[in-house]
């Protein structure tokens, strides 16, 4: 008996994998049904539905990049401190001296790549008409995921606390100042007042909500850190689960049922 056979016939192995290796048709089907990670997939699939020239694999790459961002991001959280004193210093150290500091490079480039792949995924889904019935709602979930991807990238932009970061966020968040009714330079904000006192001021408008202060500062850094590392990823993970579940329930990635 070879060592491989010995391991595969042990009680431990059998308690984890409840069937023989997927080398014949029956076990190739069973593995898809019994493995937690694989059961996301159907057992069999139409050959054109996995052709690279049809799917471009962009949705899959986007999901994989999300996993890469999660893993590298968690590792970075062990090191990086979101304070004015340390944020930039920690990023510099990650680049120059820290072992495995390349995690930051991968995290940053992966984020750029994810924005691009999520667009291209939408592009492919549109061009194959895969949003058509019965998949209308999953397209809506997809658009939400697109927005959240951009927001993840946007909130992460601030964390290195360099010139690029604070000014890009300043330019981006200045838009919130002009929100109709809710921005202190937006049309109609004067309508929201109580007895002559404006409710919407520089210290209470949509931009203040976003920044946690009147200008981009330490409060903003903290706010964006929490959004970037906890709040948005939780929402994204939930929506991804729904997105994948709906793909299965709606009968695959495209074509009418």
């Amino acid at each position, binding site marked *: 008996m070879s060592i491989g056979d010995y391991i595969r016939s042990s009680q431990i192995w059998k308690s984890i994998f409840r069937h023989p290796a*997927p080398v014949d048709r029956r076990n*190739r089907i069973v*593995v*898809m049904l019994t493995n937690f990670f*694989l059961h996301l*997939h159907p057992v*069999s*699939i*139409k*050959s054109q539905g*996995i052709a690279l020239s049809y799917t*471009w694999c962009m949705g*899959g790459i986007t999901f*994989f*990049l999300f996993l890469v961002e999660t893993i590298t991001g968690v590792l970075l959280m062990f090191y990086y401190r979101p304070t004015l004193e340390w944020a930039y210093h920690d*990023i510099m150290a990650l680049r120059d001296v820290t072992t495995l500091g*390349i995690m*930051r*490079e*991968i*995290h*940053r*480039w992966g984020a750029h*790549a994810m*924005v*691009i792949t999520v667009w*291209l995924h939408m*592009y492919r889904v*549109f*061009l*194959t*008409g895969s*949003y*058509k019935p019965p*998949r*209308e709602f999953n397209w*809506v979930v997809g*658009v939400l995921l*697109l*927005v959240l991807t*951009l927001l993840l990238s946007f909130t992460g932009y601030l964390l290195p606390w*360099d*010139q*690029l970061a604070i000014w*890009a966020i300043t*330019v*981006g968040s200045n*838009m*919130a100042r*002009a929100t*109709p009714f809710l921005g202190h*330079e*937006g*049309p*109609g904000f004067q309508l929201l007042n109580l007895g002559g006192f404006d409710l919407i001021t520089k210290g209470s408008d949509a931009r203040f909500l976003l920044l946690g202060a009147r*200008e*981009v*500062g330490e409060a903003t850094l903290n706010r964006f850190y929490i959004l970037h590392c906890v709040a948005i990823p939780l929402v994204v993970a939930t929506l991804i689960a729904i997105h994948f579940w709906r793909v299965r329930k709606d009968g695959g990635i*495209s*074509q009418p049922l």
Partner: protein
Amino acid sequence: MDPHPDLTSGVVFGLGWFYLILFAMNACWVVRSYKQDGEMHLFGIEVPKASFWALYAALLGMVSIAHFTGSSQPDAFLIRMPEIFKDYADLTIGNSKLGPVLFFAGSIVGFVLMIVLREILVVPTVGWVLLNGSLLLLGLSMTDYDFRQIVAKPDNVPIVAMLFIVGYTTWLYFARAVDNDRRVKEGRPLYEEEHQEKILVWPDLVYSELVCMLVITAVLVAWGIALDAPLEEPANAAKTPNPSKAPWYFLGLQEMLVYYDPWLAGVVFPSVILGGLMAIPYIDYNKKGNGYYCFEDRWFAVSTFLFGFLPLWVAMIILGTFLRGPNWNIFGFYEYWDVHKLEVLNNVNLSEYFWLTLMGGAMPKVDPSAGAATQAVQILVREWLGIVLTLGYLVVLPPVMAATVCRRMFHRMGFLRFMVFSNLMLLMLALPIKMVLRWAFNLKYIVAVPEWFFNI
């Protein structure tokens, strides 16, 4: 020594690698061409078409060697973008009046040509020529100092990559769509219908997923080693960079700020874009084109989406990233970003055109000390023309469309769906319309109510 050298040893050497890769790509193409393209008559003898590609590839190989051997004397190196081309490009694109017009009109013309000439575009050789042309243009442009400053900025590298990927995926779409359109015309089954046999996910899909993950990981690690991720000087709230730019994927929105106020360009239009995207499946009643590539079965939906994605989103990002310099002035691809470049633009509101130019009188006064109701009436008098035009555009035009040009659409879509659809279309066209008005008449605002931050 020139502080801004067009060529340095490092650049020449790097370009040597660039042309070496191009040489390798074309060497593969020679093989493909030899197997598939056949022969042609030349001076009475049969010559494989691949021989032309072989000549071209050999030339690229020599160019590459020339770069490697010439890198010690960059100043004397001859292969560089001709000055006359650079000057001409900068004079046209870098011109504050002409530049945006040329750029936008050029992207529209390219867009229309792409759709009209799609049957020619999808010939593999044509696609390959276009790819080689754009790569050669990029390689030659890299011999310019100012071009390199912008394109090789770490944050802009992904955008350059994105352009090529978007170009390729668009080509791929048209290749598949044109093929399927021909099949429909000839009564043959669609390509997708011919590949409906069921295969097991293990191993076919699971293994390709594994390979894909490994490739992406390798690319990311190589990318992370080769290029430092963007990191500039420490943040300094007192030192505003000029230009200050939003993250690159929002630069299309920032470009809109040239034509619309922040409440529209930064809040309302992005919301409309997202709402509009979510509304697509509920608006598009066409049952054809579900699960296969095609153009003719759904030409309107595809053209609209491509129009929104290519000229209005991707091209605007290029414009915002590569051509917008200090003070958000427009600069040519090879132009030095001069902070003192003057742009004299005297923009005029529609109400000023009406009251001052047309009526030859004075602007109606709005009394800032008066009550809100009085002010509203005074503003209404001053801005009546713009308000009427805007309401006409968004409220009157849709029913008119429903009764005339879009009658069949209106009947198939029903009232609510058609109203949402027509308003989304009109809002999408609002950007090009305002652009043209700005370029043609220096029009600033159609409705200008600075008292209430309400400018359109």
